[in-house]
């Protein structure tokens, strides 16, 4: 997030696109509802009728996967109507001309053809967001990112925000809602194939020299493989061994059958986890790990706030904290990591990463700090890009609309989108062990639009079979107008309904994110 959870309440307009924070980030969803109640205007762009859509001042329900066209259309209207922030664009951005050129063809007519959104709605949305002089915040979630065009979507959102000058002000900003407790931190820490810690690119030799000096080792400077690319690399024989730390790709990865086939081909699979996950069951070695309540450390949340995690209880049996396992294994591999406490590791992080340089455990003892915190007397950064962008000028990177990789056809006439339920989390390995949560949400339902249900002869609570080119699942149907005509929504928390057997491992060309949110499916009633 460029901004903070606390300044949601200050927004004049809140645009939510591709996020159902009510289920994915409930305490943030709550603040958005409270802001709405407090007078903020709410603009929702979502194919699914979410709780936000119910409350919205304006709800756009575009065809799935048409976000780039819609956002470009909004830019087009804003330019046409002359309601962009000219000062901001002039002083703080570059490549504006390119934006004008690329979006020129996204006339309301053209956009309506792709998105299904009528001109009046498009114009209303553009005007509402652009509202000159108002503070407008954009929130987006995986509904925007989990597409083969995910980075295009995100860039288009950034273009819109820069054009309207909505950055660098409390109550504004571009605010991605990160799905997992420390996905922000894992990125910050450089657990990425294309950057070192602190987003230092692999092409930056100075940074490498510095790391090599501090770590006293020669580092590889060639690019690595993204997690989503690893499976093909295994099947092609390039990758022989995998170290899986706290993930369950057998359930989590798109087109899970593909991942399983790859895991079976591996020479050596290490899994480090708190439970014997489906992936761990295939491992050659399983390291038992401590969970968050059994170790010290820090998480960095979606608003870039670095906060403490503290040991409350002992790990079960011989389980060890993950950092201890890495230290011991590394020692045996001939590279010493002689840390005795996570704080020592953190101090190394702050030494290497400018964004964290001013943070110490002592400073975040009570309240976390939002990076960047360049020095020990810096108060942290609740709002990014005030006055100037971190990288200097904001660069417009307009993109053209590309249709989703797999669209419905005669054989697979429906679209599948994956969703979350509020009580459950991810694949349920944690939440499903709490009886109250199971009582609240014991099974997944395929949410299907009334018209589709009638056409397919499906009644409420019928068991249906949902198939894609990659697999099949069975579950009960729930008839709901939350689902758009032609789309079935299925929560992905339930191992007994492994919905990622259906999804498509079509990846974004830059981020390598998979297109979880769209694939072509068919649905039939299972006769009892």
């Amino acid at each position, binding site marked *: 997030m460029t901004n903070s959870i606390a300044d949601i309440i200050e927004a004049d307009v809140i645009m939510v696109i591709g996020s159902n924070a009510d289920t994915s980030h*409930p*305490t*943030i969803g*709550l603040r958005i509802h409270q802001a709405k109640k407090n007078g903020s205007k709410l603009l929702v762009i979502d194919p699914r009728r979410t709780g936000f859509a119910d409350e919205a001042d304006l709800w756009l329900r575009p065809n799935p996967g048409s976000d780039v066209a819609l956002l470009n259309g909004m830019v087009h209207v804003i330019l046409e109507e002359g309601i962009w922030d000219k000062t901001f664009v002039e002083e703080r951005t570059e490549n504006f001309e390119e934006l004008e050129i690329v979006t020129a063809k996204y006339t309301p007519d053209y956009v309506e053809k792709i998105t299904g959104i009528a001109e009046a709605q498009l114009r209303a949305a553009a005007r509402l967001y652009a509202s000159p002089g108002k503070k407008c915040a954009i929130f987006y979630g995986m509904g925007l990112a*989990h597409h083969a065009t995910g980075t295009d979507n995100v860039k288009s959102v950034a273009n819109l925000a820069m054009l309207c000058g909505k950055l660098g002000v409390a109550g504004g900003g571009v605010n991605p*809602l*990160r799905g997992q*407790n*420390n996905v922000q*931190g*894992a990125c910050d*820490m*450089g*657990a990425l*194939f294309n950057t*070192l810690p602190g987003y230092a690119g692999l092409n930056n030799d100075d940074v490498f020299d510095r790391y090599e000096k501090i770590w006293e080792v020669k*580092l*590889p400077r060639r690019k690595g*493989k993204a*997690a*989503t690319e690893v499976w093909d690399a295994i099947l092609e024989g390039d*990758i*022989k061994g*995998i*170290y899986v730390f706290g*993930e369950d790709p057998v359930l989590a990865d798109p087109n899970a059958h593909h991942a399983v086939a790859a895991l079976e081909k591996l020479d*050596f699979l290490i899994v480090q*986890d*708190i439970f014997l996950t489906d992936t*761990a*069951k295939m*491992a050659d*070695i399983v390291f*038992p790990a401590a969970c968050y*309540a059994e170790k010290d*450390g820090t*998480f960095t949340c*979606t608003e870039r706030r670095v*906060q403490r*995690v*503290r040991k*409350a*209880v002992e790990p079960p049996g011989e389980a060890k*904290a*993950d950092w201890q396992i890495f*230290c011991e294994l*590394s020692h*045996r591999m*001939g*590279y010493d990591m002689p840390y005795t406490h996570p704080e020592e590791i953190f101090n190394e*992080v702050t030494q290497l990463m400018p964004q964290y340089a001013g943070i110490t455990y002592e400073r975040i003892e009570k*309240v976390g700090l939002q990076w960047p915190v360049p020095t020990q007397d810096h108060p942290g950064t609740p709002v990014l890009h005030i006055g100037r962008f971190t990288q200097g000028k904001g660069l417009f990177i307009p993109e053209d609309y590309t249709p989703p990789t797999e669209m419905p056809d005669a054989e697979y006439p429906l679209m599948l989108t994956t969703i979350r339920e509020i*009580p459950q989390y991810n694949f349920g390995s*944690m939440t499903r*062990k*709490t009886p*109250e949560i199971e009582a*609240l949400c014991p099974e997944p339902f395929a949410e299907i639009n009334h018209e589709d249900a009638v056409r397919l002869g499906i009644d409420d609570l019928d068991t249906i079979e949902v198939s894609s080119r990659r697999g099949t699942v069975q579950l009960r149907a729930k008839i709901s107008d939350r689902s758009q005509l032609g789309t079935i929504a299925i929560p992905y928390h339930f191992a007994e309904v492994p919905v990622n057997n259906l999804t498509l491992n079509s990846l*974004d060309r830059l981020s390598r994110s*998979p297109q979880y949110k769209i694939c072509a499916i068919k649905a039939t009633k299972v006769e009892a």
Partner: protein
Amino acid sequence: MTTVTLTINGAEIVAEAGLTILEVARRSDIIIPTLCHVQGKPTGNPCQMCMVEIEGQEDLILSCVSPAQEGMVITSDSDRIAAHRLERLAILAETHFGDCKAPCNLTCPGQINVQGYIAHVAKGQYEEALRLVMERNPLPFSVGRVCPRFCETRCRRILVDEPVSINHLKRFVADWCMSHEIDLEIPKDAPTGKRIAVIGGGPAGLTAAHFLTRKGHDVTIFESSPMLGGALRYGFLEYRIPRDVLNYEINTILRLGVSVKLSQKWGKDFTLQSLKDQGYDAIFIATGTGVDIPLEIPGAVNPHTYSAMKYLRRMAEGKAPDMGKRAAVIGGNNIAMEVARTLIRQGVAEVTVIYPRSRVEMPAHQRNIREADKEGAQFLLMASPVTIADSVEQGSRLKLELIRMKLGEPDAKGVRQPEPMPGSSNILQVDSIVSSLGQRAVSDTFSGGELEKTIALSPNKTIDANVRSSQININGVFAGGDAVSGPRSVIQAVVSARRAADNIHAYVMGVPKEEGESRFNFTRGKGFDDVDLKNFDGINVKLREKMPTRPPEICSQDFDEVKLGFSEKMALHEAERCLSCGCTAYDRCDLKELAINHNLNINKTGMGTTPVYARDYSHPAIIVDKNKCIFCGRCERACEYDALELGADSFDDKGRPVGLILGFNDKCVSCGKCVDSCSTGALNKKAQTIPLHTEPVTEVRSTCPYCGAGCQIILRVKGKTIIEVTADPEQAPNYGALCVKGRFGHEFIQHKERLTKPLIRKNGMLVETSWDEALDYTAKKLFDLKAMYGPDSIAGFSCARATNEENFLMQKFMRTSIGTNNIDHCARL
């Protein structure tokens, strides 16, 4: 910032302008009580607890809504205010209906949190259950086997079917922890440098040693016998407390770091003076009642007549005397029953217990009498020994002459004392006699030193110690257990010694004794007759688990344990029978705390007596007990989703709701904030079944492990178990808000499916292995892959759930140890 200057309770305070008086007070750490306050959300129906006096204003005013103004002179602690609060509290208490503590807890002499450990058992948390018992009773193995079970006599389940088998559950958790080799890792305070001598290594001595060691003192037990245990070893034989169990129990205490000196006879090997000279800061006498009251009839001194303690001790030491084929036991106390049962096991064919009154009047517990009876002991009642002589008959050694008794006229107290029936002589031919007429601490006076002689004694020849201070008439010397009380149950010795330990701690440290727990208690009825049977509507009959017991005709043939203990399944089943009478909001109830602080006497002013409302279990995560609701409205105003429906059909003349409505509408997202905001136990988390009394609870601040919102949570930890998760309303970024996962979804932490050992694949199967093997094997395989295919043949997936430090190390490991940039995580998934 504009400020105002005002005075509260005489202290001048400069505060930010625009705050209420209550806020100003809170920020200055001045406590003004309130039951209804929710920051930023005033109520139209104030509890009035926060009322204060303002100089120049006649009426009391509400500090929660009145702005702090320049120059105000405020008083929050006057008698007038206290009286007003007391009046308000009395009104609220009058309709508050429930039990603060469960009757079992209140009846237990040890004040053990019985409901708490049963709830732990029901959750399968046996280790935590035992740790909770050990907070107050370090002898759960023995007490779990021999306790008279005062608690079970008051169990409310009696009003439904049968009491919960509480004591068997205690024994179960102790035995389970022993067989699973659990180290409870009981925490100890930092060393104080104080040395304490404990004379006697029986139940009281061991208990005192346990608690004093936990307080950080250096304790030495002086025991006259070659082994510790006292009455546990020499009063109960193996069939009651197996030796391996007893030794384990004693070792658990000693492992804390207690020194022991065995075969040290008081008065011979050491004296009180010698201990003082050695620098002990305090001495605790816990020598029990090892002296039998002698049988004083003609002929009582002969080689075949024993006193009970002497006989049992010889049996315990494996030096069984020859008792012949027929034996008489004189006396009807618990020890007499142990003697009879031991004689039977020894092989004595006929064992006759002789007692001058009827069976129901025997001082032994009826349960013990029944056991002896079942095993074949005979009872000659209404009879008293007169003389003992050598037998002249073939095949018996002694001739015991008895006189029959009858009950006389009631005496002044209305008790009918037995009187001999003149001329009613009976002769019993026996081979041996054991008398058990009661025990005392000492036969005459203590001896062996000058100080010993001065020890003040009671008429019953027990040590005269002050009930409150545990001190005897010698400075720095304390006493407890049976040596003071005379023969009592083990749990009573434990309690006496625990109190003494508190007193000794206060004495040696020169600090005031910790205040005892308040006896303040709301109750649904003191006696069974006071309890409205409506309380049990909807509770089905479910009879107690039967303790697996060896049949008497078999178990009486040997010294093996008679009662075999519950299986895990039985224990779980039995624990589920608990009605959970006590309030699980005990530790957070503001009504109770304010009532105690203001000395409200609810026994006079009144409390609810009948359940007006049925408990509502319909919410998936929350139980609603409207009988406890004081209509403070905090739940409704704390709820950020407008999900609570709170109202009433009407209000009575004191403003209390009649026909209370408290429920959830469909906006409820089960976030549980209402429960954490409740001022009493009207709202409770279904999963939080452990009432927390004085047990230490640690609050650990952390970050929620679910989504990326970064909500701050508080993990409440008791022992080694997370009891519940809450949030701090003052803390960014979530300010007390959590979702259902954040507040409830933490059961996975202590789930039985957690991985506890490294696994390695062998012959196609994943099997448990050591860390060394797992790590060595992994390092070798990674080396081999690197050597054969290069570092880029290995890839790592990091974890967006793990900490920054760990993600940093994972990528560092891949980049340094392996030498590849094939490192990524599920940011995209």
